[in-house]
């Protein structure tokens, strides 16, 4: 199973990188979402894939039998919650940006860094 997961992680990371390099912010969000899942799968595989028994100590025993590693699952759960909230914020931000700037193209978002007005020369030109 391991190699399949690793190949899947690679393919997902490649798609995520492709989407993130787009100028369209919607594609970038999808890229971010995919990248977050790449990270989650990486944690999952890094925690070693073994038996799928739940790690529960049975009554009367003191050690756990051969079972799944619970820690990566706890980490992934945390990471999913965090990435969900951040993506939700990002989508709201982009919606607001679209309403305000009327564009989804990052090249056309030049409000914060207008091309002129930076250097003294440009200010003179503008005047």
């Amino acid at each position, binding site marked *: 199973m391991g190699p399949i997961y690793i190949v899947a992680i690679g393919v997902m990371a490649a798609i995520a990188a492709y989407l993130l390099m787009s100028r369209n912010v919607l594609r970038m969000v999808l890229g971010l979402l995919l990248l977050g899942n790449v990270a989650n799968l990486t944690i999952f595989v890094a925690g070693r894939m073994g038996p799928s028994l739940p790690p529960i100590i049975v009554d009367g025993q003191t050690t756990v039998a051969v079972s799944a590693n619970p820690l990566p699952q706890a980490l992934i759960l945390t990471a999913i919650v965090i990435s969900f909230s951040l993506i939700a914020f990002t989508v709201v931000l982009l919606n*607001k940006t679209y309403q305000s700037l009327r564009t989804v193209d990052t090249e056309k978002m030049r409000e*914060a860094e207008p091309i002129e007005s930076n250097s003294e020369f440009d200010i003179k030109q503008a005047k």
Partner: protein
Amino acid sequence: MISSHALLTLPILVPLSGLALTTLLWRMPRLQRIASLVVSGMFLYSAIALINVTIDGTIPATQFGSWKAPFGISFVADNLTSAMVLITAIMSVVVALYHLTESKENSQPMFHPLYHGLLLGVTGAFMTGDIFNMYVWFEIMLIASFGLLVIEGTKEQLDAGVKYVMLNLVMTTVFLVAVAFLYGATGTLNMADLANRVPTIENTGLVSALALLFLLAFASKAALFPLFFWLPASYHAASTPILAIFAALLTKVGVYAIVRCFTLIFPVTESLAIIIGIIAVLTMVTGVLGAASHFDIRKILSFHIISQVGYMLVGVAISTPLALAGSVLYIVHHIVVKANLFLIGGVIRRKTGSYQLKEIGGLHRTAPFLAIMFCIPALSLAGFPPLSGFWAKYLVVKPSLDAGTWYLAATALIVGVLTLYSMLKIWNEAFWKTPKLPPPAQAPCVSFTAQYIAIAILSTITLCIGLNPEPFVTFSIEAANQLTNNSSYINAVLESSYAPH
């Protein structure tokens, strides 16, 4: 005597309660401001209590949820951590004070909850002893900073916000992937335990790859070359108190993570030292050149953050105790000075109506007190004796000459001169020259009292470090000794247990 558990959780609980309290006071702006200041004062008290314990070299550590280390989440405070928490607390008080008389347009009810959320994330990142937990604190800090950056929802802020959010989210995901790989290689996430386990990994190539992944993730947080683009693209869109707290804390969390990671988990090897050294040089140079090309106060100061972060990295590249002491002192000095300059920039904006140096002037006549207050941090930033920047730069340059890395020392000195050029530019344009246009008529009831007090406090701290550097330097050297000789940190974490009193 407070238990170490209480000591280590209070600096987290206080901003958390501040977040809750200021949210409840949403519709009462005056009360909200005062509550925010009071909570910041309590935060300062908890930070002082913490540094009181750590200053003699003891390292308090605690575990959450009754899990013994290394299985649970550890909180630990050595000298570096407690110094960072203290300086964060001082900034929180000063910025909350500054906000008391901030103009109406710059005071949204959302500011205070997000502000305390930011402090919460920053403090957590400083205190945690668990690398995954550090990722969580980073995210708390980030989400608060996202909200603060776009708080007014102007076009400029939304544009800056999109770029800031995207770049930062990608880089924290890189951090998470790095944590996953590290966990896969060692089977632990506790930083003290990692310090023991990483040297036992036989595959040295794997260790180098992991170290570089972490460097990549933290470098973008610290705005190092070539990953600094999010900073000048976004910072200047925020309003002054927000900008000051961002400038003081956000990049420094990245620097702290680099210092912690590359003294504890991945001790700097020879090849890594060269990489970090080159990054430091390029960061210093690009930052200062970027600042030289701009005529907007906020943009000049934003680029200077990048340049100054390079100085902090020099200590990590050399990694001798004295060099790391230089980094620690530089971080403290820089936080105070940089926040002060941004606060002064905000007052200039309120007095003249613009951040553009070309449009303003004559402030040495209209605001002589502000002019004096500007000189202290500006000259300190450039490294003039006897101000704090001189001693911080001295502790950066001397170890780099001792270690034979003359290029680090030379860059540090040349960049110091160029920093002076930028500061003189602000001085000449904003304070000295006669303005082209008469300043706009001010609203009659504009009060600057709290803002001047905030600025004066920070300038006094700069003067204190400058005129009496001895205790600060001694403290930094002790902090650096704890960093280079990390067995006391490791023992403190692994031997501590949760023992409620």
